């Protein structure tokens, strides 16, 4: 599958400072991809280069294979975005704002505007001035303008900023729907790991303008889990586990035996214990939190 967004060796210098160092990644249709990093890591700067608001010092951004630098108009028509806050013309109504952006692309009809208004649930207030909108409504209007022209890449910079938990959940469900049902490639940025975990399929960790790593949320959750075994007799169980997974054993406590294995290994261990006559009273998986993994990976600080 061809990626919707390709970033190749992207670099940004402002003055003598390098803000983004050699960033490369691909984002595919149907996935929600995260940019995770503390404030000042370079998420917004990267997004600004992707959408052509900032010049690219070196490297390349391709959208559906089209270079944003060389063929801006052609590349950008596949992109819908909110960069930082969804700032709209406050003295215009929501509808007039959408009309404004609709006029800037070919082929967005009045019907399409109404469709998008319905999609984001703003029908009741769309003819009110934007200055009367709450932050949540502005986010919705921002989303509406980004979706007007049916983009294949949707970019939202800190979309959950200032939203309450219910609002965050709504955005999350909506973005996942767009990715899974409409096949959009969605990029969201955040400085909160918990949001990445909730919203994304994969995310890139950015620190000091460098790509630290790209993680799949699924893999992270699956890989090496902490498992607590409540068994009797304990000594025999320990020797059996030593035999099959010598590295798995962590410690023996009053609660039971603590082991660290991948998810797929748990049934095998259970079967081995049972077949040797050990009584298994309980297997409790204590999923190693993403947070822990994350701290391991980034050196354990910096993330707010």
């Amino acid at each position, binding site marked *: 599958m061809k990626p919707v967004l390709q970033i190749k060796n992207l670099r940004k210098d*402002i003055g003598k400072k390098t803000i983004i160092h050699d960033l490369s990644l691909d984002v595919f249709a149907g996935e929600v991809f995260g940019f995770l990093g503390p404030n000042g890591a370079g998420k917004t700067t990267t997004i*600004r280069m992707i*959408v*052509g*608001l*900032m*010049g690219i010092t070196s490297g390349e951004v391709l959208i559906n294979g089209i270079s944003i630098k060389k063929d*801006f*108009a*052609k590349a*950008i*028509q596949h*992109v819908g*975005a*909110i*960069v*930082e*806050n*969804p*700032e*709209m*013309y*406050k*003295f*215009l109504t929501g509808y*007039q704002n959408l*009309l*404004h*952006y609709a*006029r*800037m*692309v*070919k082929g967005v009809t009045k019907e399409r505007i109404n469709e998008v208004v319905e999609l984001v649930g703003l029908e009741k207030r769309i003819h009110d001035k934007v200055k009367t909108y709450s932050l949540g409504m502005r986010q919705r209007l921002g989303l509406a*303008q980004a979706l007007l022209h049916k983009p294949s890449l949707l970019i939202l910079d800190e979309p959950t900023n200032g939203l309450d938990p219910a609002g965050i959940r709504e955005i999350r469900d909506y973005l996942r729907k767009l990715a899974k049902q409409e096949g959009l490639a969605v990029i969201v940025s955040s400085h909160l790991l918990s949001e990445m975990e909730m919203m994304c399929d994969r995310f890139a960790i950015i620190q000091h303008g460098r790509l630290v790593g790209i993680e799949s949320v699924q893999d992270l959750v699956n890989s090496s889990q902490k498992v607590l075994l409540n068994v009797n007799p304990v000594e025999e169980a320990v020797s059996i586990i030593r035999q099959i997974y010598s590295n798995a054993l962590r410690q023996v406590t009053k609660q039971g035996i603590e082991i660290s294995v991948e998810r797929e290994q748990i049934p095998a261990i259970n079967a081995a214990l049972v077949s040797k006559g050990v009584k298994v009273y309980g297997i409790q998986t204590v999923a190693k939190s993403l947070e822990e993994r994350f701290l391991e990976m980034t050196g354990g600080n910096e993330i707010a």
Partner: protein
Amino acid sequence: MPSFISLIQNENMKIYRRMSTWVMIGLLALATIAGALMIKGTHKEEATGDWKKQIIAENQTLKAQLSEGNMPKAYNKQLEKQLRINEYRLEHELKPIASNSFWGFVVESSNLIEFITLFTIVIAAGSVANEFSWGTIKLLLIRPASRSKILLSKYAATILFAVCMLLFLLISSFIVSAVVFGVENVRDPYLAYQDGRVVETSMILHVLSVYGLNSVNLVMMVTFAFMISTVFRNSSFAIGLAIFLMFTGSQITMLLAAKFEWAKYSLFANTNLMQYIDGIPPVEGMTMSFSIMMLLVYFAAFNSLTWLIFKKRDIAA
């Protein structure tokens, strides 16, 4: 790629959906009406006097001044012209056009073009700078329209605003003048002085040329404000600087022109093209075509700087 017309539609929406724009239009209408009433109030006596006696008296003074001959050449030319026109009036029984007459007020109200210049400076200064201060520039520039096209649409909408305001002033001054002063002298000709001869032309043509020549200054100041607002992304600074220069620029130039010949290359020595019709250019030897050349150079310089900066800038707002 969007059509240029839809981009202008967008800019128009952003201009005319704002209260402040309508306040400016209202102020212009008010100023026209107030001006007419003020002239009506202060010019009561003048109309009753015998215009021929006044002109004869004026001609005697003019002749005396001319015979002294110690004035600059351009100034003498001006006196000469006035004298010839006055003589023509006596000869053909053509009453001079008073301020409190139909044409008199229409011509008088062209002074309000300064207001229009002011208002258009406000629009021009906000056009780009407001998008930055509102933060909307980020959503504006991520559309399949080139930055040049967007910038041009902003400039065009600004000029379009000025044109609408000029038309509005022209039409409202006709209406107000007709209502307040009546249309008695509507058939009077305008007396122009061409190549040493007095010729009768139409008054409406004269009014249009006054508007046209005044608009030159308008366009230059608006283009200047547009440039400053794009370069500094600050509309108040652009408004302040443009208005300050508008009111002091010509004075400073006059002071410089008295001492230095190079003052003729300054913008403000050239913006007032009326000086070649019924005035004196600040530096001797300046001609209309010289000024037009200079204006074109400034115009091109302002616009290319605006365009270069807007096209290249990183949007970090």
